[in-house]
């Protein structure tokens, strides 16, 4: 029988067809949700969505855009900040 902890909905159920011809259920972990802009809450582009073990193996440049506030603020919020910076000085 299935382990009790795997009956939780935090695991996803995947139907896999084996070489013997049987269809079996495998229990796999769910990926974390998409990163959001810290000011407006929009989902960020250019960010990776993987389980922690895989995220560690990814290079730094593949997890965030190479732009000021990349991976933290969305493009519209960064542009607003840059305009403030240009107009206050």
């Amino acid at each position, binding site marked *: 029988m299935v382990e009790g902890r795997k009956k939780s909905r935090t695991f996803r159920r995947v139907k896999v067809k084996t070489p013997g011809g049987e269809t079996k259920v495998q229990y796999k972990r769910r990926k974390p949700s998409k990163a959001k802009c810290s000011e407006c809450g929009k989902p960020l582009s250019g960010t990776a969505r993987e389980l922690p073990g895989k995220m560690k193996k990814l290079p730094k440049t593949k997890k965030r855009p190479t*732009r*000021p506030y990349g991976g933290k603020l969305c493009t519209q919020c960064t*542009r607003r900040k*840059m305009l403030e910076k*240009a107009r206050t*000085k």
Partner: protein
Amino acid sequence: MIEIGRLCMKIAGRDAGKKCVIVEILDDKFVTIDGETRRRKCNVLHLEPLDEKIDVKKGASHADVSAAFTKIGLKARETKPKEKKIRPRKLRRSKLATKTAAKPEEQKTVKKTAKKTKKKTVKKSVKEKTTETKK
């Protein structure tokens, strides 16, 4: 506002927040910029013009722009490639045997002694602490 010599700040891209000067006007949408940013074609909508204006001719080279920037007190981007630093890398034992044995062995012994001294100091301090607490 968009004219040759006008000081601007880039508001988009990886050079965002950096100051640049308009060097050439290509048409009503695109200009060539240089300064703290890379020397490139840029959309006018990605620039925020500032109040200052610099003495720069049309199509000025990077050297002229950097000279004009130093007068104001800004530093232009360096275009010379950086020197490649050779990182110290450990050699495998199989490769050590093929190479000359003198230098790598010296390095190894130096490393070993350094590690040993570090361990000794740690042990000493621990022993001192335990003796003090007992007393």
